[in-house]
Every structure is written in structure tokens, then in C-alpha cells.
């Protein structure tokens, strides 16, 4: 599998949430080294779109293609290349930061303790490594879930509001994280309403209305 062929494409996606037609004939494509920033007001269907792209939601019509093949949450090959950061952090509040990463990432790949420390250090919460997530702030929790992105060698990143609850430094962190990913030839789809990655030629905006 060559990274050069990595590209995400959608063809005329239509999706309803209840009786609302949130995604109407949506077609776009993102090539390797590119980021698609999905913007739009709350409730416009950003999360729905990202879930469709992950294969977690089947659209009423149309399809999303990864490397030319329709995506599906059932497809282990697709999952292996995908990192999804939902608006929920997928953290257990009774576990420590370190344990959360160990158990969540460990299901996917073998993981050495030193890698966990490295990732926690990178997101700036290595001091909280052995604290239960219960006592961490919302921003620290978001940073912890961002740490997964270091530990999963994914080509396609689908990030739902990655900078929620983050301070200015956290915003810079997310930006550098995504830039590094694009540098490596990765693909990213990011839903955001902050001024994230505003002046970057590799970032294309997709405005949902």
C-alpha cells in the first residue's frame, strides 16, 4: 500500500437525522497531504458527515470512498488506516491517564509503556499520567484523547472538534499535530468552528449550510 494513493472521496452523499435532511448531495475529495476543514453552525451535520466518513453511519444515498473503495466500519483494512477522534473522548474517569491509553490503544496495537509516556509528554500532560481522569480538567481530557493520535499510525485522521476546551497553547498543539501529519503525506478531515489552520495552503474549507 503506497501513501500516494491515499485519498478520500465522497459521491453525492445524502443523510437525514430524524426528518432533517442534513447532508445534501455532498461531493468532495481530499488527497494525500491535504486537510479538509469542515465548518458550519452547530447542528448543520458536521458530526454526521464525519461519522459517515468513518463508516459508523450509513448514508441514505451516495458513498464515501477511501483509496477508491467504499468505506465501511466493518472493514479491518480501512480501520487500520483510520484514526477517529469523536466529540466524546472515549475515556474512563476511574482509570488513570496512562491506563486509559493502555487499554484503548492496546486493543489496536501492542504498546510499550515508554510510548505512552512519550505521547503524554507531547500533549503536555505527563504530570497527570497517574491521576484518575475524574480529577482532570476538560482541556486535559481532550489533550489525553489527542495523545491517541501519536500512538496510532493512521493515514487518515477524522477529527471532530479536536480543539474543544483547549487553551491557546492547546490550539497551537492541534495545529502542529495536523501539520506534521500532512507533512508525512497523511489525510485529515477536521470539523472545527475555531480559527484552526486558517492560513495554510493545504487546508481546504468545506462550508456546510
Amino acid at each position: 500500500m503506497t501513501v500516494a494513493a491515499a485519498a478520500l472521496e465522497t459521491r453525492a452523499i445524502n443523510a437525514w437525522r430524524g426528518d432533517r435532511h442534513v447532508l445534501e448531495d455532498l461531493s468532495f475529495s481530499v488527497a494525500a497531504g491535504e486537510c479538509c476543514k469542515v465548518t458550519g453552525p452547530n447542528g448543520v451535520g458536521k458530526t454526521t458527515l464525519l461519522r459517515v466518513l468513518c463508516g459508523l453511519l450509513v448514508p441514505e444515498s451516495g458513498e464515501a470512498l477511501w483509496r477508491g473503495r467504499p468505506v465501511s466500519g466493518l472493514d479491518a483494512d480501512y480501520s487500520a488506516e483510520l484514526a477517529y477522534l469523536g466529540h466524546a473522548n472515549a475515556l474512563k474517569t476511574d482509570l488513570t491517564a496512562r491506563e486509559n491509553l493502555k487499554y484503548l490503544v492496546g486493543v489496536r496495537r501492542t504498546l510499550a509503556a515508554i510510548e505512552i509516556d512519550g505521547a503524554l509528554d507531547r500533549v503536555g500532560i505527563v504530570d497527570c499520567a497517574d491521576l484518575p481522569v475524574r480529577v482532570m480538567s476538560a482541556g486535559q481530557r481532550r489533550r489525553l484523547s489527542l495523545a491517541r493520535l501519536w500512538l496510532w499510525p493512521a493515514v487518515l485522521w477524522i477529527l471532530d472538534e479536536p480543539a474543544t476546551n483547549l487553551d491557546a497553547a492547546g490550539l497551537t498543539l492541534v495545529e502542529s499535530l495536523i501539520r506534521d501529519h500532512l507533512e508525512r503525506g497523511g489525510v485529515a478531515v477536521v470539523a472545527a468552528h475555531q480559527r484552526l489552520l486558517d492560513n495554510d495552503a493545504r487546508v481546504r474549507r468545506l462550508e456546510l449550510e
Partner: protein
Amino acid sequence: MSEPAGLIGAMRLVVRRELTLAWRRWDEVTQPLIFYLVVTTLFPLATTPELAVLRTVGGGVVWVAALLSSLLALESVFRSDVEDGTMEQWVLSGQPLAWLLLAKVVAHWVMTGLPLVLVSPAVAAALGLPGSVWPVIVTSLALGTATLSVLGGIGAALTVGVRRGSVLLSLLVLPLAMPLLVFGARSVEQSLAGQSAAGPLQLLAAMFFLAWSLGPLAMSAAMRISVEG
């Protein structure tokens, strides 16, 4: 460094995670056991302390209490994982969801079903059941609660996105659990009458194998529907 985790490794990790969580939330995890003990203790108080009478209903009481308390525990088996987004990550982990859910149900049974099985000789003694029927009670409850864990797991996976899912879960699962109750109580009754309990126990074992072989597939299909909702 980044080789994919093997299936067995992933399942072991899920079990360890569940046990760690249970250890930190022991007050929550022991609730079904307390419920079981309270219900079985209330029976003699409400009916009669006469051992001869208690003995005739003892097997049924033990089984009904175990069934309800298992069901009580099963309602929330997947809830927190679905609400906090862990389940989505499992679906997308590239590991077969059925096996991950199976590991979770095994851990859940170890925490809630196994304690019921282990205390049941004491409960049986309190209800005046002679020591000769304890092995049958323990065997039948072990098979029954383990089968119920899978049946309840399917129901819980289906109803996890539903508010007030617990009533719906009971309506879904109790009819399926009726054979367990019937044969479980029957095995205790036969053993009490001095007959061999092999027949009902074998039927329980058959249901156990059916549930554990096909149940995980049904659980993962049900979970996909819930997560995709």
C-alpha cells in the same frame, strides 16, 4: 514497534480493563450480590420460618432471585462504554467486535454472576436445603447465570441507546430466560427428591453452549445498530 495487537491480547486487555474498573467501583459491582442476598433473606420472613415448607420453595426462590439480580446487573453492561465513545473506538479498532464484547461479558459474569454462584450454598442452607443439593444448585446457577449474561448482553446491546431501557430489556430477555428458570429450578427440585438432576442440567448446558457460540455475533450486530443510530 507498532505491530497490530493479536485478538487474544486484545481480549485479555478488555478483561483486565473491566476488572480494574470493577475494583475501583466495587460498591456498584457488589449491588447485584446484595440484592440477591436481601431477596432470598426476605422470603422466609414474609412466608414462614418452617424449614419443611421453605425447602419446597427454596430452589425456586434461589433461581428467581438469581435471575432478577443478574438482569439488574446486565442493564448497564455496555452503557458507559457507548456513552463515553469507547464503543465507537472498538467498532473502528479493526478487531472483531463480537470477540471484544464476548471478553466484556466474560468479565461481567466473573464480577456479577460468579459471586452469586459462590454464595448460593450459604443461601441454600439458609432456606433449609440439604447439603446434598448444593452441587446441583451451584452447577445449575453457574450454567444459568452465564447463559443469561449472553442473552442479557444481546438485549443490553439493543437497548443501550434507549432511554428507560431497563424495562424494555426485561421484556426482551425474560421470555428467553424462561427455559433457564424452568430447567434450573427443576434440577434443584429433582435433586431434592433424590432423583438424578442430569436431564435438566444437560439442557442448561445445551443452552449455555448455544448462547456462547452464537450470542456474540448477535451482540455485535445489535451493538452496530445501536452505535450507528
